[in-house]
């Protein structure tokens, strides 16, 4: 268990950009009327924002970062580090973070690299950036996190298509004495097939067969380049692994749920998140959701939920929050920190 306190850093601002194109699940014809009702009941997802074919994760992150840098009045020359966390990069290579360094007019003295993580990516990304900032040599950083998952799900797969929305986020992080965050993170590669795209990497290179649409079951057809998700395994993993990790973090920080203003979870599905919330004894008021209007936005879901549900609060008061991401990998983590009157922009539609 990777339990650690990282000192001397703080979040100064968060921005989120989503596609303006909204897709309503009520119009998804692969689901029966009963399934549509059950979908909303179990997942909480009524609609999602879906990227146009030409829009990538980095496009949304770029918009979010530009708006955030302007709002914070940061001098772009002063940004020392850019980390892009995503499972939908622009290219196989080079790293998308380096392309963004140029597009954002940041200095070439800036470190830039990618991290390939999904649902846990925001917490992991924070830990990486915080660690690098903590030493004091780097003063300002951008954590750019997001996914265009719609490009990786089959529209003929009712087990994935209605769930995923697209978003890109930017989080401004800077050196700050007397601020810190406590992290706890874990991984389990034994579950690597639970959420997977089988072809397209070096293990299974793209071939003609990769594009063959296969009928897996009623309303579920996909090819080997499409995302595959075992819902029962994900549920089992999430509700058995996440609460213990958070309980250890609470013990380590000598805190209890009542000490937190908000518990912001990765927005996976409402039924699963509610089970986790109840196991940990956080209240409904402490646990915001953005699922209804944005769906599961993978790595972007935590910052998106902060922007959509908490912006008023965190801009005016210090809020103690516990953030937790969990999913593909399998990978899961949590962090406790203070969001002290940070800049939080309203959701930007592109």
């Amino acid at each position, binding site marked *: 268990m990777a339990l650690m306190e990282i000192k001397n850093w703080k979040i100064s601002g968060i921005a989120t950009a989503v596609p303006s194109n909204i897709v309503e699940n009520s119009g998804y014809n692969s689901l029966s009327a009963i*399934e549509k009702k059950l979908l909303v009941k179990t997942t909480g997802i009524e609609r999602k924002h879906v990227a146009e074919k030409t829009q990538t994760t980095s496009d949304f992150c770029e918009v979010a970062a530009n708006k955030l840098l302007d709002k914070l009045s940061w001098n772009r020359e002063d940004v020392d580090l850019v980390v892009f966390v995503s499972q939908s990069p622009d290219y196989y290579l080079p790293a998308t973070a380096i392309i963004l360094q140029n597009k954002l007019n940041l200095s070439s003295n800036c470190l830039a690299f990618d991290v390939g993580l999904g649902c846990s990516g925001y917490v992991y990304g924070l830990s990486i950036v915080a660690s690098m900032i903590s030493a004091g040599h780097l003063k300002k950083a951008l954590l750019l996190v997001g996914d265009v998952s719609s490009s990786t799900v089959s529209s003929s797969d009712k087990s994935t298509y209605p769930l995923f929305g697209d978003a890109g986020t930017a989080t401004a992080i800077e050196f700050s004495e007397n601020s810190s965050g406590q992290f706890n993170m874990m991984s389990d590669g034994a579950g690597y097939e639970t959420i997977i795209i089988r072809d397209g990497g070096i293990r299974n290179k793209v071939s003609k067969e990769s594009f063959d649409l296969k009928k897996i079951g009623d309303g579920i057809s996909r090819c080997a380049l499409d995302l595959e998700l075992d*819902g*029962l395994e994900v*549920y*089992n993993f999430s509700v058995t692994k996440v609460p213990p990790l958070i309980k250890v973090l609470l013990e380590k920080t000598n805190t209890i749920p009542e000490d937190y203003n908000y518990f912001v979870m990765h927005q996976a599905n409402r039924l699963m998140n509610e089970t986790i919330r109840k196991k940990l004894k956080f209240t409904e008021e402490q646990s915001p959701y953005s699922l209804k209007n944005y769906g599961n936005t993978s790595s972007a879901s935590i910052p998106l939920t902060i922007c959509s549900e908490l912006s008023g609060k965190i801009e005016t008061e210090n809020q103690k929050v516990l953030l937790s991401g969990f999913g593909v990998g399998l990978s899961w983590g949590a962090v406790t920190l203070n969001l002290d009157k940070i800049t939080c922009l309203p959701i930007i539609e592109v």
Partner: protein
Amino acid sequence: MEIEVFLGKIKAEFNEDYDIGDLGLDDNIKKMDWWSSMHALVIIALIDTEYDVMLEPSQMKSANTVRELFTVVNNIKV
């Protein structure tokens, strides 16, 4: 833990939203015309909440009737 109460909880969970008809203990729930994979998730969550038992996905996949589900849960509880 009584099997009829168990059945009642499952029926109540689904009947909230639509009519699932007269579900019996030995009916194959996965062959019902209303069944979908999302129902499996709802049943797992219900059992977790009501009985503090987390079914493994394989246990959910292998149980086809309410009686079989009850047996699995009961065995874990014991």
